[in-house]
């Protein structure tokens, strides 16, 4: 179990490190998300107070950028590249198949907290289209039939 106290301690260090920089908010939020995995309300309050800005500013930025998550993610994040090159080579069918196999819509997490399914912006690995990533692993030239075996690899 991660110690929340330690996490907040780390967050305060990050805030102090960046406090006097111009435009410090986003770097702080990015590091905060690395520490906590997402940005729950108490983390946003800590950031707002630490940088001397309002909570609404922090929340405004958190909801504007797709990188920031307000909900915790699953153990494995499966991201299907929806860039144009992948799309014309059948990424939609891959995403549909994943959605069907996991029983969640893109953006959602499975009930057991194992997988989060994401439709992501272009990963720039167009030579491998269609591409999906599971955490840091890249799977290229994916066909829908392969999906069950890819999921099975991470289930255990």
């Amino acid at each position, binding site marked *: 179990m991660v110690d929340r106290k330690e996490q907040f301690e780390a967050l305060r260090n990050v805030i102090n490190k960046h406090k006097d920089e*111009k435009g410090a908010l986003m770097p702080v939020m990015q590091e905060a998300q690395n520490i906590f995995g997402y940005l729950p309300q108490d983390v946003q309050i800590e950031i707002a107070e630490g940088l001397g800005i309002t909570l609404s500013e922090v929340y405004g930025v958190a909801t504007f950028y797709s990188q920031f998550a307000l909900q915790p993610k699953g153990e494995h994040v499966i991201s299907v590249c929806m860039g*144009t090159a992948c799309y014309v080579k059948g990424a939609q069918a891959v995403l549909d198949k994943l959605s069907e196999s996991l029983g969640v819509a893109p953006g959602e997490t499975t009930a057991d907290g194992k997988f989060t399914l994401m439709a992501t912006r272009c990963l720039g690995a167009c030579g491998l289209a269609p591409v999906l990533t599971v955490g840091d692993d890249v799977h290229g030239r994916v066909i829908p039939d392969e999906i069950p075996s890819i999921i099975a690899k991470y289930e255990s």
Partner: protein
Amino acid sequence: MKIYRSHVLICGGTGCTSSGSVKLLDRFAQQLKEHKLDDEISVVKTGCFGLCEAGPVVIVYPEGTFYSRVTPEDVDEIVAEHLLKGRIVRRLVYHEHSEVPNHSQSLNDIDFYKHQTRVALRNCGVIDPEKIDEYIAFDGYKALATALTEMTPQQVIDVIKESGLRGRGGGGFPTGLKWQLCAKSVSDKKYVICNADEGDPGAFMDRSILEGDPHSTLEAMVLCGYAIGSDEGYIYVRAEYPIAVKRLQIAIDQAKAYGLLGENILNTGFKFDIHIRLGAGAFVCGEETALMSSIEGRRGEPTPKPPFPAECGLFGKPTNINNVETFANIPQILLNGAEWFRTMGSQRSPGTKVFALGGKINNTGLVEVPMGTPLRTVIYDIGGGIPKGKKFKAVQTGGPSGGCIPSSLIDVPIEYDSLVEIGSMMGSGGMIVMDEDNCMVDIARFFLDFTVDESCGKCTPCRIGTRRMLEILDRIVSGKGEEGDIEKLETLAHAIKDTALCGLGQTAPNPVLSTIRYFRDEYEAHIKDKRCPAHHCKDLLHLEITDKCRGCTACARVCPVGAISGEPRGKHHIDIDKCIKCDSCISKCHFDAIIKV
């Protein structure tokens, strides 16, 4: 310096890293050690070679042997055969599509490279991007040294102006003029920004330059700082590019250690510092005013222009902002002169342009060609044509702001103005090829879906207008299109183009307008005949089994909803009311007996 008899270059770009090039690096190191060759042969991890389709790519010099799709097991053979005994491993040598196998090819014989002119990509795949010495050995920082010691800031600007370089981010604004405007602004503080928020789906040249040759961007930013009178710069780079970010940081640290960045550069008293800022996944931040809002730590919403960044930009100070590829050209122009630069490309658009070739094309990858090169050269001579003998239908340039160019215009020269004339645009250089199986209405819908998602919501035409357009397109592809929908789309498109606040909104309707212009018949088929000519839109097609069926029952067994019936060895039949069009049967059929109608 140590001399090696051979150099093994392994591509460490994102494409090849994704297909496992890092494992090759370890395997080479281990194998060379085992054969006691590690003193004679050096292994270098470089940036992108460009031919991502063939990844992971390994090139052995001095022969220039080009090995493609190399696996860790193959490494043992390359070391034992090629490096130890001097015998090229023919089965791994890259063969172009039409080439007869067993014909060994080196880099310069390959069509993919033969037709290219590499300026911005000159060092990518040649040097180790994590070693500043290698960049310096290829004339790196020479332009900076010359400028700081022998030229005035105005002379630097004059060379860039004379070269005719235009912004490679897509707008095509003359770079020299931009620098001049910023230089003229009087202020105690000015900023230089490098826009590396490469958001166009399918475009990855800026990332490859940062990964393969990060110092060229740094050098150009310092040059720009000197020219306009700035001492601080930011690189705003996508967080999705971890390799690029890492190498940029290494490059910045090395440049500082060498006195090429930071205080008192090259002992001239000039100082310049560069910070890296990570984007957080918002397409609109590629727009310069939105990007600056983002660096300031706010929501990335654009602001109306004027005031232009050259007068009032980052933190309210005059700011010059260029994209990565534009910067990558700068040191070369100063080294070789404006005249040299103008010998490449066309009158209106001198120089070269990097394109990311992708989609239905044999050689996916990065290509750099002189401006004005016809599309045909890029798609057929360099790209190797369309796979599986399919028919070329269109090429999409300019990403979500661009348009689709039909096969009838394949001889159009690629440059800023000619692309705009035919309803598309250069954009950052994404080039997605589509074949007969791609539905153009669906492609327009795909891009609209993207812009609706990425619209920041600040101005009404973009926030609401693009959504209304998407609803109409959704209706058309699902077979519920109505008479007059095309006209409604056109009216909305022109209204949005005229009234949206920033470039994102003003260009969002382009994919729709260009597909209507060249593929109106496809729209009409969807609306009037409830038919998708490309057999792509699921709601407008059904599956049928033809007389080719041999009754092997493979399709009936794979069908998840039991929609296929028939006796063994007899022709099968699909119940279209039950069929969910998952295409499982098509992939299982050995006789190509199942078709979409």
